[in-house]
């Protein structure tokens, strides 16, 4: 009769875990893989009507030279804790950010400030979209009417940083 010893089980488990960790992931980038984001433009909402939501979109060029052309996007606002907020002095106005992996979209995946969201694939064939389609992704920024409706009077601004990682 054979009994497995706890030591042997632990050794096997460790070896298995090591083997699994060593397996290449289909979604992960290899060393040397790069990405590039271009075609960005500032977004000016103008005067908000303080009742209805307002969304501005822009098509951007997103390039990834990984084997799958995959990438992850992380958006950081310049509010407290990288929050998506615009500021007017001490007052803030929140906004929301969505991202679509193709251009010309009116909806996308909601991004959480400071959190990388993966699973996007770029169709760009050149790092600045100088050949093929001129853009490959859509950035959507929304200011809710309710947020504007409770905001203090003023001109608000903020910087949104987009960080792209090849996958």
């Amino acid at each position, binding site marked *: 009769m054979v009994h497995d010893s706890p030591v042997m089980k632990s050794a096997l488990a460790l070896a298995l875990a090591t083997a699994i960790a060593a397996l290449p992931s289909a979604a992960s980038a290899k060393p040397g893989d790069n990405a590039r984001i271009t075609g960005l433009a500032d977004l000016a909402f103008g005067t908000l009507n303080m009742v209805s939501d307002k969304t501005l979109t822009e098509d951007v060029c997103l390039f990834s030279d990984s084997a799958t052309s995959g990438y992850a996007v992380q958006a950081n606002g310049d509010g407290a804790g990288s929050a998506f907020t615009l500021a007017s002095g001490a007052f803030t106005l929140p906004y929301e950010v969505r991202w679509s992996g193709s251009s010309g979209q009116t909806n996308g995946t909601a991004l959480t400030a400071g959190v990388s969201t993966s699973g996007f694939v770029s169709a760009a064939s050149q790092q600045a979209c100088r050949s093929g389609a001129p853009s490959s992704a859509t950035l959507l920024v929304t200011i809710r009417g309710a947020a504007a409706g409770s905001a*203090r009077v003023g*001109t608000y601004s903020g910087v949104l940083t987009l960080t792209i990682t090849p996958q």
Partner: protein
Amino acid sequence: MTTQLNTKRGIARALTLAAVAAGSLIATPALATPHQGSLGNPSQGDITITASVQARARLTGLSDVTFTNQDPGTAAAKAQDVCVWSNTSGKTYTVTATGDGSSSAFTLKNSANATVPYTVEWAGTSGQTGGTLLAASTASASFTSGAVDQTCSSAPSTTASLVVKIGTTDLGTMTAGSSYSGVLTLSIAPL
């Protein structure tokens, strides 16, 4: 010796001050946007988002005022708590009351076109039975709202008091059994 040391220290301080002054002249470069990303891992870009919010105010929570079977020997007064919201930095506002009488007068009228005047008072806090006397069609002095949202859905539920009064002298001119009515319009302006 002591003098020399002090002098050296003085020179050192002067040099330090000069360095600080020079450093302060070097402006921190502002982030120019849009900033396009470079090819890399990761690649990073920046944009500036701007929006403006106009000065706005809102008045909610109004109720009709009814005086029923009023004793002409007793002054009539009805107070109500309302919600005023202003999005100016100081949450300040003015109120202008307009009646539907002649030249916007605060008057009620019956079916025989007989009129009776009333007065309007406003307080910048709720729960009041009196306040600042308003003149018809004339903006009041500044009030400050404690409202945190447009309709006072979050506390405080009310932020101001509207008081309508009819004095005994005027009550005494009214015809018994006759119904008088009028419309009072309140305009709130952010300040």
